[in-house]
């Protein structure tokens, strides 16, 4: 379905605009941004990246299996995608609760406002993607998809890879970007 590229493209461009806006705000107060950045958990962020990459890989394997009509293998790869998606959600939730416990909220300063906004919107994408993958997984167990019926899985997979690649940029932007 060609139209899905419009959705994915638009989403990518919107996020690019957000990255630009973040950098613009950072230009005006680099010291505060750097200080707040230090309170983020780099290790958790890095692990989140590993989780999402693995999730994308699992979903990509599902599509490869689908193309070759290895119908019995599709569900397990989709389930892998679902479980890793859920792991990301749990990890992010823990991270957010840690922040809230320290009294850090979106309104605390401009950096945190961006942190919660960017990761929050991304998390919403993860939740939607994981739900879609779950739907795919359920239907795949009943043999709904095949090499000749794979438009819906491919669209969902493309969306999921978008979610992955957005995090690939978000992580260094928020967590790793040191000041000069």
């Amino acid at each position, binding site marked *: 379905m060609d139209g899905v590229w419009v959705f994915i493209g638009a989403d990518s461009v919107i996020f690019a605009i957000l990255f630009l806006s973040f*950098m613009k705000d950072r230009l005006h107060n680099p010291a505060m941004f750097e200080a707040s950045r230090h309170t983020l958990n780099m290790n958790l962020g890095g692990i989140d990246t590993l989780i999402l990459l693995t999730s994308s*890989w699992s979903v990509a394997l599902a599509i490869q299996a689908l193309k070759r009509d290895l119908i019995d293998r599709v569900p397990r790869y989709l389930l892998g995608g679902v479980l890793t998606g859920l792991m990301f959600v749990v990890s992010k939730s823990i991270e957010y609760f840690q922040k809230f416990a320290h009294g850090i909220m979106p309104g605390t300063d401009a950096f945190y406002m961006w942190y919660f906004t960017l990761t929050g919107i991304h998390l919403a994408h993860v939740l939607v993607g994981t739900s879609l993958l779950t739907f795919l997984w359920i239907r795949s167990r009943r043999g709904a998809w095949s090499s000749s019926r794979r438009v819906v899985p491919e669209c969902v997979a493309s969306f999921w890879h978008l979610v992955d690649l957005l995090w*690939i940029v978000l992580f260094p932007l928020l967590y790793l970007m040191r000041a000069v």
Partner: protein
Amino acid sequence: MSVLRERVTWVWIGLMVLTCVTTWGLSKNLFGPAVAVVGNFLIAAVKVRYVMLDFMELRQAPLPVRVAFEAWPAVVAAVILGFWFATPAFS
């Protein structure tokens, strides 16, 4: 289908390694800020490109679509780095 022989598996391994390099390598104080930041974003751009080409299967997409999408990590990295270099230092 042997998982280990799939292209996507090799791409995944590469992406995982690059992630470890940036998160636990480049970001350590061994490297100066400019090297770390430029390195992180160049690597991020490369990672995004491989996710697009091999996971999203952009290699098989029509050329205009592929060009448009491949431009995204390049432009995003360039803009971010541009802003980073333009941001004043502080003591």
